[in-house]
């Protein structure tokens, strides 16, 4: 091979090396994103479980005094019972939102009972659950952001060229499916 042939081979080799490098980086990036999504989901799952474990203690602490607020307490118990860590993520999102709404209603009702509000045990439980609710909200945002980045990556160049080869599918957000979102009834 003459010198010009060597130079041409060098050029082709360099271009192939760049393409291969970009492909390997893209593949590794998708693998890392999947790991991050799984980790972000595990972090949510831990907090959902903690909230699930804490709610009975809160309901027990306020049940005696709030005998006339059975609807609110029943709603919290019903929402809590729907928790199932094996459900698909969008279904868990629906049930998590229901639990959050029920807990907020309970906290609102507690405001009307000074004897409950002044109970240190209740205050402590309320603070813990509020902290967990805040963590769920923050970690949900982080998870959804990570899923967004993953979905965006596997649908844009150059990674979308690799997606069919490796069977990469879009991941679901931790949010209710659009068809499950209830529209509030309005009567104008």
């Amino acid at each position, binding site marked *: 091979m003459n010198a*010009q042939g060597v*130079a041409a081979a060098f050029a082709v080799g*360099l*271009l192939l090396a*760049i393409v291969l490098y970009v492909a390997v*980086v893209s593949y590794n990036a998708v693998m890392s994103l999947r790991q*991050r999504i799984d*980790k972000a989901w595990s972090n949510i799952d831990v907090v959902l479980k903690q909230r699930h474990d804490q709610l009975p203690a809160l309901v027990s602490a306020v049940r005696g005094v709030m005998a006339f607020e059975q609807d609110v307490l029943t709603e919290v118990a019903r929402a809590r019972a729907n928790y199932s860590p094996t459900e698909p993520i969008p279904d868990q999102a629906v049930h998590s939102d229901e639990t959050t709404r029920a807990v907020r209603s309970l906290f609102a009702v507690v405001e009307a009972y000074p004897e409950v509000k002044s109970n240190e045990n209740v205050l402590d439980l309320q603070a813990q659950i509020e902290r967990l609710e805040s963590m769920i909200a*923050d*970690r949900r945002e982080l998870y959804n952001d990570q899923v967004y980045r993953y979905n965006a990556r596997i649908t844009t160049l150059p990674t979308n060229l690799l997606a069919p080869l490796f069977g990469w599918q879009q991941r679901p957000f931790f949010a209710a499916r659009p068809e499950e979102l209830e529209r509030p009834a309005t009567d104008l």
Partner: protein
Amino acid sequence: MPIDWQPQGIFLALAGLGVGLWLLARGLADYREATRIGDTSTSRIATLAAGEVQVSGVIEPAELTLISPLQSATCVYYRSTIDGADDGIDLRADLTELGADFFEERAVGFRVRDETGDIRVFPRAARWDAPTTLDDSTGLMGDEPPGLRIRTGPALAPTGLGRDVAIAALLAGPEAAPDFRPLLILGGGAHRGIGGGDGRRHYRETTLAPGDAVTILGRAMPFGDLADPAEADIAIGSELAPDDAEVAGDIAEAREAGLLAATPEAAWGNASIPGFGIGQPIRAPVLDPGATAPPLGTAAQASEAQRRFEIPPDALVLASAPDSPLLIAQGLPSAAVERREGHFLLGLLGAILAIASAMALAMIVSGALGS
């Protein structure tokens, strides 16, 4: 008589090939890093979970800050070089320390704060992407650049405790430059500089200072999991590791021989009192009766000093792990990604340069251009 330009042509082609490949290598490395930063969501510090995380916030000093050598600026990281101004190609950024007359890079631990809280950063083994705050040369008449303010004191400074101290520092103007030419000590005057030649020098300094916005990508771990917090805190420091067999052997030998003090008090005396030398000691030191007793810190100052120096073992901190060094980059994540993408595009241009240079070299060698 035809000019024999083959040697120059070969030299230029080889230089083009080298520079092109170097640009390409840097661009590809930055492409990978841009992907890593861009694919990691930014966590809120208050709800941070252990593991690989990315946080973005503002730098706050921890126990100590650094004073940069060229601007005397208070910072948590600096990288400074002084070089001859007219010594050929200036490769800038990554390679300025090669052949520099003066090169120094240091960092200390700091805190980073976002809207939800703050976290301690231990920058040992971190990779830094800091802005250039000084990039200037000596003038033709030998006059030094206006931003140059050579450090004349120690490189480390204690961090003032409390808001009042911070406000006072902000309101105070820069100290008057002393009538002292440290560059003479380094080896040169205005016309006989350390850069050699005609004495002109090029000063370059990158710093990250309290108040700067940064993006940090790395591992959040409980403070108790750090092998050695003292080592983890210093980014560029002693390379002696306590787990090194030889160092551990020396320490054990010294301990057996009774050469090591049993307690910090025995070793350092009053300097072992928390707050001593940094702010105010939180208990009365035993002083020479003739000496003036320093004022004791208030309870609030004591608790602030405690908070700064004593980190609970389960508190999350950011530190390098063996498989994932910290990346500390100036600005928001999007800005850090943008800079790296720019380098990637430059790297692709470098590939074109390398290919063109290889083609030219081949043509020269085969005589196609020479005849």
